[in-house]
């Protein structure tokens, strides 16, 4: 008898891949970037399906396929999940201490730097012509 296709294995694997690669999309929106719950949900669904698929493959090998490629897909999915965890839950949180950064109540240090049009901009000029300023430091390298 021809054994049946073990769809949860493949679907689970695809969900794990989606969990990894969809971060490029979900990282665009603060709600799915501040905490990557959408990606973790994809990984979790993938994991459940993989466990189900492996259960079928090993529990009823006469009916379902997947004893060979099931573990391979499971290991690859686990690798994708580990890579995601390392990148998003560990690497992004490695911040310098910045103990000497200016604090609330302190006077800001004056500086002058060229803007995007090459024109020199002094912080004092900007402050004197407005109610205040929001100074945003970016990682850059766009």
């Amino acid at each position, binding site marked *: 008898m021809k054994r049946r296709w073990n769809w949860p294995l493949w679907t689970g694997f695809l969900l794990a891949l989606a969990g990894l690669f969809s971060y490029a999309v979900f990282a665009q929106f603060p709600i799915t970037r501040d905490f990557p719950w959408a990606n973790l949900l994809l990984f979790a669904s993938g994991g459940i399906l993989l466990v189900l698929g492996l259960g079928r493959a090993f529990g009823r090998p006469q009916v379902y396929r997947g004893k060979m490629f099931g573990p391979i897909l499971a290991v690859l999915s686990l690798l994708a999940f580990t890579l995601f965890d390392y990148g998003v839950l560990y690497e992004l949180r490695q911040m310098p201490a*910045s103990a000497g*950064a200016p604090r*609330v109540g302190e006077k800001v240090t004056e500086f002058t730097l060229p803007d995007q*049009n090459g024109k020199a901009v002094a912080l004092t000029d900007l402050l004197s012509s407005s109610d205040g300023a929001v100074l945003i430091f970016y990682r850059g390298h766009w």
Partner: protein
Amino acid sequence: MAISVDPPEVSKRHCQKMGFTYPFLSDPKAEVVRRFDLLHPGAGPGGADISRPAEFLIDATGIIRWVNLTENAAVRARPEQVLKAFDQGSAQADR
């Protein structure tokens, strides 16, 4: 206004792409970034020194009213947080 280690032409391209109209300052040697103790050594592509993400609200007299030093590069201050800090600062100034 914004500061990054990118040269002005890169910032200009980025501003045009994103529609940013505020001053986008260029600090290629990370001098101001260092002075603010925000340097993240080797965190850029190819091990370049870059700034960690950080936001400061400064009032017209140059006093810092609000600081946000994120613990996660993916989590930045949202506009409403900054506006709230600004409103609270104005309320205090009015008293």
